[in-house]
């Protein structure tokens, strides 16, 4: 669905990281954890393309201005990395955005009661929050959050409020354990019981490491990927990744936008 949205809040939650809440049509609360939005940041031709962001949270609040008495909103959590996100960070309450959402395939919640592990690197935490919100209803959930430094570890309090057990790792040791989040996770998993499902979102090397761990532990693992996108709906074929059956002769390309962004780790080629 394409719709016009208004910025409600746009707050810097950590240096260079923003959390933005914006209005959305009521149908948007049906979005699945792991789905994403494509945002046209300016009605001008610069930047030309929409920018993709995972849905961080959604909900509604009471307002006298809507017929139903409630206003639906969605939230994104984003890092300023270039021109588009830089312009996004400059927006104020009341500014307009043009959004296409919800897009892509979300996470599979697995079976009730099983323990679930979430692994997030940096802003890769974004789509995991909505997932956690759902999972805690019927599962024990642990989160391993990694980042380069303490500024890159986001919204831990929000996860803890959900009742998620959180572990933090930073490359420089300024918050939580020092080291890669996957190393820290392995240490903790070695002591506790084996989880039943892994979910990961973050940089590609981290995802590959998590996929490897899942393979070793023989547990299912879903990863959420990023790719440079033009359309977000399977039309441009710009965002492809190699599927597990890919070879030069028998191409197996999958669209991150349409077949993903969430994939079973075993469906992808990890070279």
């Amino acid at each position, binding site marked *: 669905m*394409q719709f016009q949205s208004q910025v409600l809040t746009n707050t810097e939650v950590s240096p260079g990281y923003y959390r933005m809440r914006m209005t959305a049509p009521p149908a948007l609360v049906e979005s699945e954890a792991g789905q994403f939005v494509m945002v*046209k940041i300016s009605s001008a*031709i*610069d*930047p*030309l*393309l*929409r920018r993709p962001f995972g849905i961080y949270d959604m909900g509604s609040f009471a307002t006298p201005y809507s017929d139903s008495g409630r206003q639906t909103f969605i939230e994104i959590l984003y890092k300023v990395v270039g021109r588009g996100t830089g312009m996004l960070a400059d927006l104020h309450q009341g500014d307009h955005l043009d959004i*296409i959402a919800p897009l892509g395939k979300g996470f599979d919640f697995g079976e009730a009661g099983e323990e679930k592990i979430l692994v997030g690197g940096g802003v890769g935490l974004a789509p995991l929050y909505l997932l956690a919100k759902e999972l805690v209803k019927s599962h024990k959930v642990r989160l391993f959050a990694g980042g380069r430094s303490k500024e890159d570890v986001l919204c831990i309090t929000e996860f803890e409020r959900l009742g998620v057990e959180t572990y933090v790792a930073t490359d420089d040791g300024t918050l939580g354990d020092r080291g890669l989040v996957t190393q820290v996770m392995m240490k903790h998993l070695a002591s506790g019981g084996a989880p039943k499902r892994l979910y990961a979102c973050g940089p590609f090397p981290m995802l590959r490491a998590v996929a490897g761990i899942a393979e070793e532990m023989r547990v299912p693992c879903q990863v959420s990927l990023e*790719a*440079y*996108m*033009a*359309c*977000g*709906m*399977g*039309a*441009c*074929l*710009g*965002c*492809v*990744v190699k599927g597990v059956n890919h070879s*030069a002769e028998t*191409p197996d*390309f999958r669209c991150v936008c*349409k077949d993903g962004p969430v994939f079973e780790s075993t469906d992808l080629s990890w070279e």
Partner: protein
Amino acid sequence: MTKPVMSVEIAGIKMRNPVMTASGTFGYGEEFAGYMDLESIGAMITKGLSLKPKAGNNTPRIVETPGGMLNAIGLQNVGIDAFIAKKLPFLRRVNTPVIVNLYGNSLEEYGELAARIDGLPEIAGVEVNISYPNVKQGGIVFGTDPGAASQVVSLVRSNTSKPLIVKLSPNVTDIVVMAKACVDAGAEALSLINTLTGMAIDLQKRRPVLANITGGLSGPAIKPVALRMVWQVARAVKVPLIGIGGVMNATDALEFILAGATAVQIGTANFLTPAASQQIAAEMEQWLVDNRVGDVKELIGALKS
């Protein structure tokens, strides 16, 4: 006022309005069904189809540039047979002409492709892509050499009786020479332009952004070049032209028509607004109403200059 006449005809293909979707930017049509009414536009052109399925290039395949984008998809497509088996059944149910965009790795492949679709009633016409700049083997030669282009067009012409459109590359010294060669060889209409060859560089990585190094530039940035070429060709050939390049709204579309195009194709704009083609057709009609033009055909080539 009565509704203005929006219908046009290209090489015998009757369209309800002059708005078509450009090859490679509209998937196989079905991707857009949830966003717009596929029966609100003039025609749909498929992703470029080759004889065998093609994997396409490695990623990154796309990058934004100022006012445009570069793509080097490398013609990833399911191949003509899978298209016929898996994609055409959906399109068959849509009451809008479907034009297949064909791309051959060799002269023979073009001929074979044309023969393969000749008997299919649900295909309204053929757009021959001689201009694809991203695939090293062949493509660029057919698109920039009048003799080679002429050979391709003749062969396709003799292998199918479908309406025959040829899509031209802008990466040439004289677009008129190419246009004439194609018309003389049997093209009943010309689409122009395909993408301009360009390149983007990642300074920090000291690498080309695209895995393919160069790619095709599309979007608003190329509109002035496309308009110029349509205008030049319109004064040199008699067949209908389809204007392509940076059409984002009804104003852009009508500018192409004034320059001499009978219809336009919407490319990059589909990525920004999935219903762009439907919206543009509707806005064009409104413009005709507001400006008291009874028939869009009155505007074809009506530029005063």
